[in-house]
């Protein structure tokens, strides 16, 4: 998504990323990975996540998928090579809620929900091309 920010902003939409972490942790993340071209806000108690219907994946299912990903090498590149980033990711896996799933919500300028996608699993992200199509259709 970071690479497609311009296309989204060209359609007149601001981007807000929400993470299941507190402000201090988000600060540590941007120190390790660099600034992002959009706001990253934290929902450490996951009230917005849960209130909006985001799922918590069962631990056994997530660990099973991770094991399959490791065996099939689909997880190659999951852990960054750069030490500072690698340390951050490993710390995340130990200290953060990695079971909560994400999603994408699109609102018009009156706060009306236009479209949303709630991820059913870690691989089930909204496709960025589909999202940009939604933005373009809304503006048409």
């Amino acid at each position, binding site marked *: 998504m970071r690479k497609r920010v311009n296309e989204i902003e060209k359609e007149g939409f601001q981007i807000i990323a*929400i993470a299941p972490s507190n402000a201090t*942790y988000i600060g540590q993340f941007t120190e390790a990975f660099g600034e992002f071209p959009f706001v990253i806000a934290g929902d450490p108690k996951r009230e917005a996540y849960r209130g909006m219907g985001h799922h918590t994946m069962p631990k056994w299912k997530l660990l099973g998928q991770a094991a399959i990903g490791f065996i099939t090498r689909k997880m190659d590149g999951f852990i*960054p090579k750069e030490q500072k980033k690698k340390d951050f990711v490993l710390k995340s896996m130990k200290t953060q809620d990695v079971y909560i799933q994400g999603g994408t919500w699109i609102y018009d300028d009156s706060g009306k929900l236009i479209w949303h996608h709630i991820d059913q699993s870690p691989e089930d992200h909204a496709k960025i091309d589909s999202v940009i199509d939604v933005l373009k259709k809304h503006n048409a």
Partner: protein
Amino acid sequence: MDKLTYQLEIPESKNVTLAEFIHHKKSMVVFVRHLG
């Protein structure tokens, strides 16, 4: 929009609600699984 009263934390800033964030702006809100 009234329902979006969840408090969000922002580094070096005061907390805001999701509703305040998207007020008067077309917005794409992405909930991520985790950072990193």
